[in-house]
């Protein structure tokens, strides 16, 4: 073989190896943002959003010195795991509160003890139940952001059409509610044309169990309580509301046809009598169909007391974050009363310019919410929406959350699967929840080891 060819081949081999090595280094290298100054704060999972997000982000950016990398996009487990594996973690992340304890249990987040004491963050301003959701083994791992309080929205036209009173739809009396459901629902040729009362299964299953006087998880998050008599009874009843429509198939396929965020939504078209729903939907209704006739009611337990299942996001600092102090400042500022009030004002002005109503903001900061209601909010002149806002603000004290669990995702999946099996008709509530209990407890025990 000619020497020239040997050399050429060797050069080709060397070039290929170099290319592979260079590519590996390039992919492992930090993004362009990281080449900037060392004090740049890396935010993950938040990204630019609406005026509520952007106004607070501007304040927080100023508070940390103006050098912030806040890429677009929400929290993604895959992406975050990749950053953990590479050791190049962001300084502060924004994620579902239900996920915080699981990451904390695995050691991915740092406790905020030092952050809270060092920066004198007043924890009393936050709704206690939201803090419980992100407290694991006695240590706080996040700062709560929004809440999504749930109330019952009633379509007054449908109620009147069925010859009922709004009080018939109280979740206190299940017998009367079942009767009202049957009176309001309409079917034609095996298809549903109007839903009576939508129990919002599977996602509101914890709310129905709470209404029946039980919890699906122990306070310390280590004992699943999915197959208690009260939980089984709650699922049995909630499912019976759907079965009255002919089953999950006709019920769900009809619900899937709704123009949920449009002017022709299910309330505007009188396609539903009542259902429990997150607070944001009042804003949707007020903007898209302000002339609908609704009543906002609290979700009552069987003793008649109001209950409010809340959930939302939180800020947390990953272990290995380069700038934990700046991250702490960011979280503190983002969730401060001043930031929420300023953001609410901006939202109020923006809505006013578009001639749209402002239905308040519902955050984990109870002081801010009260201040927004008193200083920023103005009645719309539509008593139905005004009453809804008043209800949302005043029922804060009844809020409850699912306790922090080291196997949060698997626990949630276990009960979701159970409810879905019941909806699909493949298991009875008792069978489904017995299976879920076993799955959930096994997952918790493994995670808590």
């Amino acid at each position: 073989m000619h020497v020239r060819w040997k050399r050429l081949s060797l050069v080709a081999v060397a070039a290929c190896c170099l290319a592979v090595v260079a590519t590996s280094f390039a992919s492992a290298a930090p993004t362009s943002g990281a080449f900037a100054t060392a004090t740049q704060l890396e935010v993950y999972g938040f990204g630019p959003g609406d005026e509520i997000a952007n106004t607070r982000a501007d304040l927080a950016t100023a508070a940390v010195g103006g050098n912030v990398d806040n890429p677009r996009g929400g929290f993604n487990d895959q992406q975050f795991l990749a950053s953990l594996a590479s050791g190049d973690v962001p300084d502060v992340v924004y994620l579902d509160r239900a996920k915080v304890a699981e990451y904390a249990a695995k050691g991915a987040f740092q406790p905020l003890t030092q952050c809270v004491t060092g920066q004198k963050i007043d924890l009393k301003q936050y709704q206690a139940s939201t803090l419980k959701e992100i407290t694991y083994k006695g240590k706080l791992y996040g700062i709560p952001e929004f809440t999504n309080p749930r109330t019952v929205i009633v379509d007054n036209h449908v109620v009147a059409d069925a010859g009922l009173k709004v009080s018939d739809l109280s979740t206190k009396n299940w017998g009367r509610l079942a009767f009202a459901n049957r009176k309001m629902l309409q079917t034609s040729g095996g298809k549903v044309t109007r839903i009576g009362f939508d129990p919002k299964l599977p996602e509101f299953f914890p709310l129905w169990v709470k209404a029946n006087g039980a919890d699906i998880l122990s306070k310390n998050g280590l004992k699943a309580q999915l197959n208690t008599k009260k939980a089984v009874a709650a699922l049995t009843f909630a499912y019976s509301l759907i079965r009255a429509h002919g089953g999950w198939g006709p019920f769900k396929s009809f619900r899937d046809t709704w123009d949920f965020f449009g002017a022709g939504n299910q309330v505007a078209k009188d396609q539903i009598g009542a259902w429990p729903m997150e607070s944001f939907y009042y804003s949707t209704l007020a903007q898209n169909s302000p002339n609908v006739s609704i009543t906002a009611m609290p979700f009552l337990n069987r003793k008649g007391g109001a209950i409010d299942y809340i959930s939302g996001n939180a800020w947390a600092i990953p272990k290995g974050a380069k700038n934990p102090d700046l991250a702490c400042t960011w979280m503190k500022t983002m969730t401060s009363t001043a930031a929420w009030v300023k953001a609410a004002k901006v939202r109020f002005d923006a809505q006013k310019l578009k001639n749209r109503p402002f239905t308040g903001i519902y955050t984990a900061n109870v002081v801010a919410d009260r201040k927004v209601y008193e200083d920023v909010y103005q009645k719309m002149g539509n008593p139905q929406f005004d009453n809804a806002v008043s209800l949302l603000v005043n029922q804060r004290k009844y809020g409850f959350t699912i306790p922090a669990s080291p196997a949060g995702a698997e626990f949630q999946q276990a009960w979701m699967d159970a409810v879905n099996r019941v909806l699909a008709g493949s298991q009875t509530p008792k069978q489904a929840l017995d299976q879920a209990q076993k799955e959930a407890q096994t997952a918790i025990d493994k995670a808590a080891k």
Partner: protein
Amino acid sequence: MASIAPTAQKPGPLTRARFWASGFKERDTWVAYGFLLPWFIGFTVFIAGPMIASLVLSFTDYSVIQATNWVGTQNYHDLIHDPKVSKAMMNSLVFTLMSVPLEIVTALVLALVLLRVGRMAGFFRTIFYLPKMTPPVAVAILYLLLFNGSVGIVNRVLGWVGITGPFWTTDPTWVKPGLVLMSSWAVGGTMVIYLAALRGVPQHLYEAAAMDGAGAWRRFRDVTLPMISPALFFTFIILTIAGLTEFTKAYTAFFGAGTKTNETEAALFYAVYLFRQSFEFFHFGYASSLAWLLFVVILVITFIQVRVSKRFVFYQGER
């Protein structure tokens, strides 16, 4: 005439290795390996490396976040006793059993039709191929719209002929058939392969068969099918593997973000369960063992297919 029988013994491994090494005295060998090198590096880094890593991880409790511990065969023991593994595997097998024959038959019929279209063949070929270019995520969304039990087009069409359509997306019995039907949306890729194979069938074989009195069906059965059998076999293998690893459509329609109310165990395919175990529950070690089980299942099925195919597949030029 005396036959020339091979009298020399088969060369041993050492002789073969020497013969292989002697090749490096030739310039062409170096050049050939030089050209092969990029593929070899790519294969090592992106396929063989991760596969070996995955095999090692399947014997650990790797979770990305926490310290990794060696757990021996515990993950494999767990997957044998995990009822959702058998459920997910059965879902994938049933989906594959339904989708592969449907796609092969549909694609073959379309290819046969296109073969006779003549001048407009190019136009129709493009039209039939276009759905293949639709992202699977979009196909999943379309599936939810088209197969809605109340207002979906599929049930409307069935209604025109007096059939009351099922609740495709919520009834566990009909979830998989619905997904199978939706999968035939992208039949264009297979159709193009068959079309090329059909065009390669020598015309004189048809003429000879016709002269022997063979009718259309006989010509199709005894000339067309054997001549395109390598293409049929190739797609059979590829579609079987695709069916067993089906993920995107099922995940998007039933398990993705904002679809909590859509979830149904009837659509919990093996790849979906594997994804959940890894990226939702962080059990990467367990997910690796699931991946290896799937690999073995596919390997066994493919092996059986290859063995059985020897009786049915005809390769031109083969003795």
